[in-house]
């Protein structure tokens, strides 16, 4: 660092007075370059706007695909974990056997809770599942009821229990009449969750590719700027502008475009996610909601936008700078 500064001083001494060497001059140069970069946004306003919109759309899609995909996976995952089976017991089974069955079921590690329902309790549960107008026309004891065990499984995040395996084990116990599994097996829910997770990954990657392809918009806009400013850049070189002095306004313009575009997209995605949460009441009933992390999302958007813009400016400047 010190050596580099030394070389700089040596260069300046070689050619006599070349301007204000103070730090204040460096600040003034920086302010000038920043202003020139901002002015660059207005050189081709239509193209700049198109670039910002495409960046915003791509960033919005990335954020939405990532967050909604996460929501779908979480929902299915929870559905799989909340699976329960009903173990209907034979009528004549003695209470000692029932207690033995309960004890054996509870011994399973994946089982969370076992609740005994009497015939009346089961009938009441079944009645509650029927439409009210139908229930009104039925004799109370015409709704079936059988004493049973309501077995619910442990809620282990990210891992659905193997309900089918537990059900087949329960069927082998003496005194068990029927084991009713959920209409959609936990394994299938788990498969669905995996499929949705894969879909989410593919869609998010596609959106990331879309975002990456917007670099071409940035390059196109900056190339246009350079074409418009070619004469100015040539003159700047002739009056002693350094490479950095010519390049920095392009980078400022690129980074501004990138940050504005990606930030707008991220804000739009956050608004949509927030609205979705408000619409579903903040929770889908199983502790799942669209993940919204404003601070992290916006910080990441600024970083990604700056990276996309700077990369576009770098490519444009090495290809076209006079």
């Amino acid at each position, binding site marked *: 660092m010190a050596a580099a500064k030394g070389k700089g001083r040596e*260069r*300046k001494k*070689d*050619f*006599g*007075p*070349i*301007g*204000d060497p*103070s730090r*204040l*001059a*460096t600040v*003034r*140069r920086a302010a*000038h370059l920043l202003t020139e970069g901002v002015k660059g946004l207005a050189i081709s306003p239509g193209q700049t706007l198109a670039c910002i919109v495409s960046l915003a759309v791509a960033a919005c899609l990335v954020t939405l695909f990532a967050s909604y995909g996460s929501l779908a996976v979480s929902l299915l995952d929870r559905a799989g974990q909340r699976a329960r089976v009903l173990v209907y017991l034979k009528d004549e089974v003695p209470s000692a056997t029932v207690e033995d069955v309960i004890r054996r079921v509870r011994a399973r590690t994946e089982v969370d809770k076992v609740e005994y329902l009497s015939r009346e309790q089961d009938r009441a549960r079944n009645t509650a599942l029927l439409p009210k107008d139908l229930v009104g026309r039925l004799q109370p004891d015409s709704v079936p009821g059988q004493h049973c065990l309501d077995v619910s499984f442990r809620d282990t995040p990210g891992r659905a229990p193997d309900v089918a395996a537990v059900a087949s084990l329960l069927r082998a116990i003496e005194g068990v009449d029927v084991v009713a599994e959920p209409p959609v097996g936990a394994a299938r829910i788990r498969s669905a969750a995996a499929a949705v997770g894969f879909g989410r990954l593919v869609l998010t990657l596609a959106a990331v590719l879309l975002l990456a392809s917007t670099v071409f918009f940035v390059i196109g806009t900056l190339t246009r700027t350079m074409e418009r400013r070619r*004469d*100015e850049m*040539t*003159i*700047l*070189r*002739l*009056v*002693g*502008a*350094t*490479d950095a*002095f010519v390049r920095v306004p392009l980078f400022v313009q690129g980074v501004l475009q990138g940050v504005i575009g990606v930030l707008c997209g991220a804000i739009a995605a956050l608004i949509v996610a927030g609205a979705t949460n408000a619409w579903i009441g903040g929770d889908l009933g199983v502790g799942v909601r669209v993940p919204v992390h404003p601070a992290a999302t916006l910080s990441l958007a600024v970083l990604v936008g700056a990276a996309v813009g700077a990369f576009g400016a770098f490519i444009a400047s090495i290809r076209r700078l006079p």
Partner: protein
Amino acid sequence: MPLVSLHNVTKRYPNGTEAIRGLSFEVGKGEFVFLSGPSGAGKTTLIRLLLRMEQASEGDVLVFGRNLRALRRSAVPYLRRNIGVVFQDFRLLPDRTVFENVGLGLHVLGLSRREVRDRVEGVLYDLSIDRYANAFPPMLSGGEQQRVAIARAIVMQPALVLADEPTGNLDWELSNDIVRLFENLNSRGTTVMMATHDRFLLEAYPRRTLLLNKGFMIEDRVGYAVPKGG
């Protein structure tokens, strides 16, 4: 120590054309030198070599005592900050005012707004174009545009001014004005090298003249005599 010094300089382009062949001369501090010769003589190439826009194929070009062949690319801007350059086609930015055109280079130096304003206004006043400060170049005549270009070159207070056919697009009256401006600048100690093929100007202003033809130096003399049949 001479300000500009060339030793057996040859500039050969990739297609084999030799724009300059074995050129050697020196220009001292405070000199006024005309570079003359017909089109294709090598005047513009010589100016480009002095600005380090091109590199000599053979020989050494020394400016301010520094061999431009050995000059690192990163040092070239610092060389150019000491050289003012004026072109035949003015090269002004049509969408910037006269003030902005002239002040363009001062931002490179990191001067304050006030310093930029003082310097630009001073130069515009010296060249009698201060009333056009807020005008755009296309609104000005050729002579006025060339004055703006000269203002842009000298506002950096360079030790050397290179002018490539600055009167090429101007009539006789305006050409005289421009040369007088360069003479005035030269009288204040700035070294001026001006390329022109206008023999009437060379006759009217008897100064040291380097006469080039097809890349060779034909003559290096004070004053100018119209070549026979020329």
